[in-house]
């Protein structure tokens, strides 16, 4: 598929990569979630957070992306890496969980969702580029967070960060994290951390989305782009 640009020169041939702006934006580059994602546990549940930028090269294909996807009522996943890969993996796992719920007769565990996701990530590791964080609440273990980085490891952690922007907030999250926070403190921790990553990572930006999951269900929150700066930590 060639892009026709009205007032510039010739359009790109198939497979041709150009760094010259004569051809307009190169939309042949893969759509990626250069991203900041994170999830953290608190007393009674979890908070998931993400930025909202999807980039195709240097073009922001979507500036209000929702990177936090529901797998079931109380299990969500933060997606980073290839948008196509993570969307389709999420669809598979959502379907598996749906089927599993029927046999189980009750809501599935977060560990189950994470295990299913890991199997897909590990067994297709050659083809996929997906960094995922699965988090949610279940009756058996309460709130839990599972990180599934690129190779298909599965590791349970009190909080996890991922995506290109996470590199800039490793120190910040390590020093701000506390065990046994309440819901509001945890959400503040997530929002602040994502905001800091967005301010330094060119591939992260837009607004801050969060999902808070407890026994009573999942709640979405949204900080619009022009209010993100207010979240930055000030001494």
């Amino acid at each position, binding site marked *: 598929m060639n892009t026709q640009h009205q007032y510039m020169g010739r359009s790109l041939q198939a497979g041709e990569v150009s760094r010259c702006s004569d051809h307009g934006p190169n939309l042949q580059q893969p759509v990626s979630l250069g991203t900041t994602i994170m999830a953290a546990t608190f007393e009674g549940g979890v908070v998931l957070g993400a930025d909202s930028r999807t980039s195709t090269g240097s073009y922001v294909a979507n500036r209000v992306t929702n990177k936090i996807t529901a797998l079931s009522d109380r299990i969500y996943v933060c997606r980073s890496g290839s948008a196509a890969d993570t969307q389709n993996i999420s669809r598979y796992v959502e379907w598996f969980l749906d089927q599993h719920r029927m*046999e189980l007769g009750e809501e*599935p*565990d977060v*560990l*189950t969702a*994470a*295990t*299913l996701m890991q199997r897909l990530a590990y067994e297709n590791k050659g083809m996929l580029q997906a960094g995922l964080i699965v988090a949610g609440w279940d009756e058996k273990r309460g709130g839990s967070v599972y990180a599934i980085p690129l190779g298909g490891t599965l590791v349970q952690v009190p909080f996890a960060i991922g995506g290109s922007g996470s590199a800039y907030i490793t120190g910040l999250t390590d020093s701000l994290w506390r065990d046994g926070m309440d819901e509001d403190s945890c959400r503040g921790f997530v929002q602040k951390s994502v905001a800091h990553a967005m301010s330094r990572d060119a591939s992260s930006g837009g607004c801050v989305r969060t999902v808070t999951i407890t026994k009573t269900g999942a709640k979405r929150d949204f900080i619009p782009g022009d209010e993100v700066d207010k979240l930055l930590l000030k001494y």
Partner: protein
Amino acid sequence: MSGIGTGYDLSVSTFSPDGRVFQAEYAQKAVDSSGTVLGMCCADGVVLAAEKPEISKLIEEHSNRRAFPIDRHAGAVIAGVAADGRAIIDRAQAEASNYKSFYGDKIPGHVLAERVASFVHLFNLYWYVRPFGVCTLLATCDHSGPQLHMVDPSGTMHEYNATAVGKGRQAAKNELEKLKLDRMTCKEALFSAAKILHQVHDEEKAFELEVAWISADTDYVFTRVSNEEVAEAEQAAKAAIEAEDMDDD
């Protein structure tokens, strides 16, 4: 030769005019003529016990296993055709193992029972196989507590507080109904199981008692009760039975 099911009993894929599947009923008869097997759910776990009649003095004691672990938190005891039972146990073990690989957690009791039931049922659908001549009693202990399920040769599955199958099932079930199981521990249930099996057993022949349990004492791991503990329970049981007999006189 004519019997009850003549003409409609040659294949499990045939119904009789009055809606019965005779092959499944004949499979049940194989179970009904085997040694008594019982299971009971107590306050702190599940106990499974099998009466193993002595077939020959040449057989090694404690061989001819009837209780099998399916996973750490689950086990089963079988009544009926032992070889058929082995096939069901193999399948149950595979189901439990695959479930853990796929879903990351131990297989719940009712899911295991349903998987075993649909496996057994499969052999009631096709003319080129015969049904299993086995009743399987499945014991599990998971986050929803101790559970006992039974799968019969037709593939029907039910959950029980306690149940018995085999030769002495009627008498055994009567005795089980008298027990207050939700207030008993597994150790107390072991004594009751030994007592019931000795009571319903045909007195002339010798038999071996095999017991297995999952309880708080075993850290909720399916374990065969040691020969010493079984012998101890049997002694106490026989003494109790004798005492009752003397009271009756």
